[in-house]
């Protein structure tokens, strides 16, 4: 008797999206990359487009916003805050921070249910 594989637990937004973000950032910016002013624009676009491509394939239909900040590490401080006016049960966000020797990458994905 053929049985469909029904997952015991539906993965949360964070569980689905977090590994995607890590993978994309690692593939674009490896541990040996040095901050380069002329290339940042390209990196940021690659990260954001790579994330969007993977996230679009997720099963639940949502509107997505992917935001990426790349900051050069020279001892300066950074604070980021988000405020959201939405439905707490339907909409979520997920943030991933990766720091390397010369730069820091902060990627955030917001998922808004239709």
């Amino acid at each position, binding site marked *: 008797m053929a049985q469909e594989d029904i997952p015991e637990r539906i993965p949360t937004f964070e569980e689905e999206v977090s590994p995607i973000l890590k993978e994309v950032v690692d593939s674009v910016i490896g541990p040996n990359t040095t901050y380069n002013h002329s290339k940042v624009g390209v990196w940021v676009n690659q990260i*954001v*487009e790579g994330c969007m491509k993977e996230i679009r394939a997720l099963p639940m239909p949502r*509107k997505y*916003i*992917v935001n*990426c900040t790349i900051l050069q590490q020279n001892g300066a401080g950074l604070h980021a805050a*988000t*405020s959201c006016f*939405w439905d707490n049960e339907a909409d979520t966000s997920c943030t991933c921070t990766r720091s390397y020797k010369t730069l820091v990458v902060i990627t955030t994905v917001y998922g808004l249910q239709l």
Partner: protein
Amino acid sequence: MDEEEQKRDTVKIYNPTYLMKPRPGTKFIRVTVEGIMQRILEARLKEVKYDADEMINLSKELCAEIQAEVKKLGYERYKLVTQVVISEAKGQGQRVASRCLWDPEQDNYAQATFRNNTLICVAIVFGCYWE
């Protein structure tokens, strides 16, 4: 006093309208929102010096203030996401970028930047129509 507490505790639930477009006059207009954001940033950050402890609260307060002002404009069916990034101006390079998967005719975003001698502030508001 009890009535006021009750008013604060009630949660508004919005039912879907199933209208594909926002009603005329209630569409998210980028220019208006950008003007408000720029005004708030300039008023709040003009004389401020970057201080690691104070910035924690300041970034949250700015976020809440921008959100409250945009809500006052009356975008009834819009979900708003406000993001504020404050960094110290020490000569480092920085890049902030976003990509969105949404309906470009209904949804939009607004951004504002502010610089002074010690800090750089980038604020973004995304508005997504919810039917």
